[in-house]
């Protein structure tokens, strides 16, 4: 890879061991993926829940944080993805002391490094959305796909070590979605049914994700008949990224790089073409329901809920009472507003629980299941459904309304 003078200096250790480690890591990644050089980035978003880090990762972070400050200076603003707990709820979630100890140590290490502990996967709704053409180094696949597709920013999936590297060097290898030529569509999907509910948007994302199949595919959707809301784009993108490892999509006439077909589909290109209709979306949801008629809990998470979603949950719960656990997970930025406006009190008055700064699947989901006897889970998040299958849950994808109904009917799902 071609290195600028400053990048050479970092590699030679002139900027301290942290920057040296970071640039070496980035060079290894960039070489593997064919990057010619580096591109400056303006923000880093670091995914680092302690279930992923493990004790070894936490110790690694602590060693970096223990370096003298001038040897581990961050060059750009760095924010964090959700943590593995909400400390206020850890006791009744039956999370173990060792999990909380790892979380506290991780937070201390990041704070020492100067990382802003935003603990959110919806930073594009709440912190500082990237602008069109801005190069960033974001973690969390849902954050990346939304930023690339809806905002027109430029990022690859940057896992924790790579996002931290970008924060330390101020740049990232120029491969993948930093390049114009990678952003053209590689497959076309004709959408015959524009979803209405968030779970339907997630199902559409999941179906397109399975059709796309890998990170390097860029689906272009034709036929979406209205401009989706931010929450709809959020659920669609999160599921698309989760099921397909996809980092960029276009909706013709809607997303900013696809005002016209020719903007993203090369003239004369024979792209694979698929059609997805309402029956496909129904069949997708049905594939998870199977023989589940009753659930042990209901979870709204993945991604964290916006203030608008919080209001929708609160509205559905007014005057009702939950009889199985109902967990509502949001960001530390939304939570104070939900408290101030009274949404939290309304959800809690109905027996629901509002959790902040965590994400259900990043919070030792397997251990929580075993400790609480949870297995059958209802959610309106297709992404959560996808992930929890590997954690021993039997998840079912329902609408927000059907999830709340189940939570208020001893877990029974309306047929």
């Amino acid at each position, binding site marked *: 890879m071609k290195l600028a003078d400053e990048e050479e200096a970092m590699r030679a250790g002139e900027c301290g061991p942290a920057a040296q480690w970071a640039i070496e890591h980035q060079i*290894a990644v960039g070489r593997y993926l064919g990057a010619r050089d580096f591109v400056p980035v303006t923000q880093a978003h670091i*995914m680092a829940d302690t279930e992923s880090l493990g004790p070894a990762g936490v110790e690694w972070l602590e060693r970096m944080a223990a370096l003298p400050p001038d040897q581990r200076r961050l060059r750009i603003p760095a924010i964090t993805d959700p943590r593995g707990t909400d400390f206020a709820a850890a006791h009744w979630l039956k999370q173990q002391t060792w999990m909380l100890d790892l979380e506290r140590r991780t937070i201390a290490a990041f704070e020492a490094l100067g990382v802003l502990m935003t603990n959110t996967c919806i930073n594009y709704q709440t912190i500082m959305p990237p602008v069109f053409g801005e190069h960033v180094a974001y973690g969390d696949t849902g954050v990346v796909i939304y930023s690339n597709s809806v905002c027109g920013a430029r990022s690859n999936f940057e896992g924790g*070590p790579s996002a931290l590297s970008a924060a330390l060097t101020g740049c990232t290898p120029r491969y993948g979605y930093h390049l114009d030529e990678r952003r053209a569509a590689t497959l076309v999907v004709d959408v015959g049914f524009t979803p209405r509910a968030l779970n339907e948007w997630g199902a559409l994302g999941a179906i397109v994700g399975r059709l796309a199949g890998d990170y390097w595919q860029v689906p272009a959707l034709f036929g979406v008949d209205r401009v989706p809301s931010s929450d709809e784009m959020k659920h669609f993108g999160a599921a698309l990224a989760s099921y397909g*490892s996809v980092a960029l999509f276009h909706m013709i006439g809607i997303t900013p790089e696809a005002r016209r077909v020719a903007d993203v589909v090369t003239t004369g290109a024979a792209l694979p073409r698929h059609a997805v209709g309402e029956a496909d979306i129904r069949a997708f949801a049905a594939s998870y329901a199977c023989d589940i008629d009753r659930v042990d809990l209901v979870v709204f998470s993945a991604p964290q809920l916006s203030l608008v979603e919080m209001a929708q949950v609160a509205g559905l719960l007014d005057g009702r009472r939950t009889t199985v656990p109902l967990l509502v997970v949001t960001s530390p930025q939304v939570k104070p507003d939900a408290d101030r406006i009274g949404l939290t009190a309304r959800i809690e008055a109905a027996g629901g629980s509002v959790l902040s700064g965590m994400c259900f699947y990043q919070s030792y989901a397997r251990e929580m299941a075993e400790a609480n006897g949870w297995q059958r889970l209802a959610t309106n998040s297709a992404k959560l459904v*996808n992930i929890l*299958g*590997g954690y021993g849950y039997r998840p079912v994808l329902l609408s927000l309304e059907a999830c709340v109904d189940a939570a208020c009917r001893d877990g029974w799902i309306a047929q």
Partner: protein
Amino acid sequence: MSGGIFIAAAGMGRRVEGEALVARDGFSARYDLDRTRGVFSRTDHKLAGQSYVGRVLVLDAAKGGVATAWMLHEMKARGVVPAALVLNAVNPIMVQGAAHAGFTMISGFDRDITQAIPSGAWVEVDPSGDRPFIRLVRSSA
């Protein structure tokens, strides 16, 4: 044995040998694995219930989220880890995770590598040269 050598587009890590565990399915440390027990835990994964510890995993494509970037490092620290990953297609997360963990991985072939390597075969994976490769040493371990 030229018919038993398959050249990859890219590689990193050290040369290893081991028993191949092969499936035409994806790989994600968070979505697919019980990392404590060292087995594939996702019930609809084609390797569900099988141990990956010490095996050369030959799979189709990297899947899922960003967690794998940390998880390979954590798995390696505990020694509950595959010997190597051989994939038709990688995503950046898998590359970042392998780089952070010092893990052996090669990817990108002129054929479907999951059809070329029989499960249970003893294979050599050498990512160190200009032409990273997987070699079929013998058809059973």
